[in-house]
């Protein structure tokens, strides 16, 4: 209980910061920092509020702590100091209030022995959902990523992009409130990546998903995001924030626009600066 009382002021602060919005933010990162066991400062204290329905992208040079921040948001690791709030509560409340998180990794991580539909059904089976209730949800999720014709296929029969779609369907099937993606399309060719980006941006908009997305691609970041967090390393910190006020849904037209090009140019400059700033901290 001592811990709780010590963080109370932060809590109050968070409430004050956001009383203007009628909807509570999905995630609040309150002076959370991460020092690793070997003493390395993975993340300097960070304050960040992720609004409900926002598409937030983390980008930055390697070692800037973007994956660490994502893991904090996913509650996969605990902050060394500071705290995080999910919908104004701690993580234990997330499940109790019927809210769900879903993850998509860089690898599709599908079960090779299971058909597409069985792979997508897996998260529902963890919750022991009966087949009759699960099946329509599974079919719906598979349809959303455009793989209805392939639901009886095995992963090895699918292309890399299709496997990634299955992975996304598996994340969507639980109807998550918060979708966390760690460089999901990093291993795909650019054409496939663009196609998946097109689908993802509309999917998250239609489903009013709050998405936190880690990427190395400037184009991908600008195309997808409502807000881009540029991070710098040594220690990992927020360098600058860019808001992309292009309305959803977005399509190829946005990619071809001069606004898109301008955003990419600016983001590229910022990233170069972030790299410069990151170099100083004794990285070997």
């Amino acid at each position, binding site marked *: 209980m001592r811990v709780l009382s010590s963080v109370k002021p932060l809590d109050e602060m968070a409430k004050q910061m956001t009383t203007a919005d009628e909807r509570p933010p999905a995630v609040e990162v309150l002076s959370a920092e991460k020092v690793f066991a070997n003493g390395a400062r993975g993340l300097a204290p960070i304050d960040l509020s992720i609004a409900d329905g926002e598409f937030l992208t983390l980008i930055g040079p390697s070692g800037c702590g973007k994956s660490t921040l994502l893991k904090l948001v996913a509650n996969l690791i605990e902050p060394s100091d500071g705290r995080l709030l999910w919908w104004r509560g701690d993580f234990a409340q997330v499940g109790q209030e019927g809210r769900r998180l879903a993850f998509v990794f860089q*690898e599709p991580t599908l079960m090779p022995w299971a058909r597409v539909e069985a792979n997508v059904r897996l998260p529902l089976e963890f919750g022991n959902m009966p087949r009759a209730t699960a099946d329509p949800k599974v079919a719906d999720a598979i349809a959303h990523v455009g793989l209805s014709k392939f639901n009886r296929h095995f992963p*090895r029969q699918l292309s890399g992009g299709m496997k990634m779609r299955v992975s996304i369907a598996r994340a969507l099937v639980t109807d998550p409130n918060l979708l966390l993606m760690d460089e999901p399309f990093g291993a795909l060719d650019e054409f496939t990546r663009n196609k998946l980006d097109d689908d993802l941006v509309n999917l998250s908009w239609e489903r009013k998903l709050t998405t936190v997305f880690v990427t190395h691609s400037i184009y991908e970041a600008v195309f997808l995001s409502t807000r881009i967090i540029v991070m710098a390393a040594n220690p990992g910190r927020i360098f600058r924030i860019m808001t992309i006020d292009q309305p959803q849904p977005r399509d190829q037209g946005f990619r071809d626009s001069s606004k898109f090009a301008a955003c990419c140019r600016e983001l590229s400059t910022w990233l170069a600066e972030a790299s410069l700033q990151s170099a100083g901290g004794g990285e070997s």
Partner: protein
Amino acid sequence: MKPLFESEAFVRIAAPVAVGIVLFAVWEVGFRLASVPVYLFPKPTDIFASLLHNGPSLLRALLVTLRVTLQAFVAAVILGTLIAFMFVQSRAIEVSLFPYAVLLQVTPVVAIAPLIIILVKNTQLSLTICATLVALFPIISNTTLGLRSVDPGLANFFRMNRASRFKTLVKLRIPGALPYFFGGLRISSGLALIGAVVAEFVAGTGGRSSGLAYEILDAGFTLDIPRMFAALFLITLTGVLLFAAMVALSQWALSDWHDSETRAEA
């Protein structure tokens, strides 16, 4: 695609059969020309004649050997799998018991067979125990390896979704271990037969008659060399059929997804 595949399958069967026919022909003709006496080294036709002539007794012996082999194999699969599951439950169990599994494996069955045959009164049972000991190890080591070889990404996914230990075992570890398990089955089925035959030899020299090994021993005593070869032929045939059955089984179970059993489609 289809005719090519068909010819490929045809070649895979026809080529070894052709080699076999040529070998038998050379054997038959060569031994006939050199007029090697039957009691030194019989010709294929002599063996075949003996096979027909001693049919009932050889068949009875075959059934005895087959029964011991299959009983030992089933026992080894059940025991080995249980032990493997125990091993992956905790590192402490594995570390403390694995050396004894190795001990069991490296001790030649011929060396312990007399002891077991003396200790266990029932011949059938003592033979089965010997053969089980031989067949057990590949199942333990392969299944343990398989249960441990979990895709780290998938394991992570299961952990993140707070999958229960049981769900992780049933949905992740067991399916992932199957290719290794079937690899163990192939080795173990052959070893069960070897174990059975070796144990029968030991029992046979001790005067307890049973199985194809005893037929070989007995034929040796009476210098009925064609019968010896006929029994040998039946043992080999059993081994080949067992192996083929295991291959078919693993193909049936894994062909949908595992690289080792899937045909290239490109």
